């Protein structure tokens, strides 16, 4: 059975901390892995990863994929209260379905 597992389920950190969110997957086919940020509204796209070892970066956020070990990490440095959100990981196996993890709820306290 195809599945995507995110850890931890929730995390509370102080402003300025660095956090690492994990996403592991077991899927029959793999085309890409996507990260989304969800606040009290629509999930917004962060990164799409297709190749191992190539870091994607946007400001304080970065992500990398390991296709051999079947996982990805999302790093957030110098966290701010505005980073508080649910972070979703999804795998696109090709075809029309996306497989989502349960999400990691991040809370950043001042």
């Amino acid at each position, binding site marked *: 059975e195809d599945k995507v597992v995110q850890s931890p389920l929730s995390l509370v950190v102080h402003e300025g901390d660095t956090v690492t969110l994990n996403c592991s997957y077991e899927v029959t086919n793999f085309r*890409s892995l996507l990260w*989304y940020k969800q606040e009290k*509204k629509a999930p917004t796209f962060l990164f*799409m990863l297709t190749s191992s070892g190539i870091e994607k970066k946007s400001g304080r956020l970065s992500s990398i994929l390991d296709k051999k070990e079947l996982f990805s990490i999302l790093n957030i440095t110098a966290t701010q209260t505005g980073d508080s959100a649910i972070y979703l990981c999804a795998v696109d196996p*090709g075809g*029309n*379905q996306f497989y989502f*993890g349960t999400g990691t709820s991040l809370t950043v306290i001042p």
Partner: protein
Amino acid sequence: DVKVTQSSRYLVKRTGEKVFLECVQDMDHENMFWYRQDPGLGLRLIYFSYDVKMKEKGDIPEGYSVSREKKERFSLILESASTNQTSMYLCASSPGGSFEKLFFGSGTQLSVL
């Protein structure tokens, strides 16, 4: 920017009512999806559509039906709402093709009393 619009942000219905959730996208996307999101369970696919009048069941289609009469609009129907259908419902669309991403609506928080 792609816009995916869900008709209601919050909805309260009674058990047994027929409920319509509407979703409209403005970018001529081929694919549209309905997910429900529950704490600890993540996003689960209810139905998706890859073309007008075409639909496929997702992981949890029971108790739901869908309609796609026009390319831009994808409706989720709860024929007879039940309390276990209380949830956040997210609509999404994607262009179709390779290496695509999903574009989400803001969600409808449905409460069935």
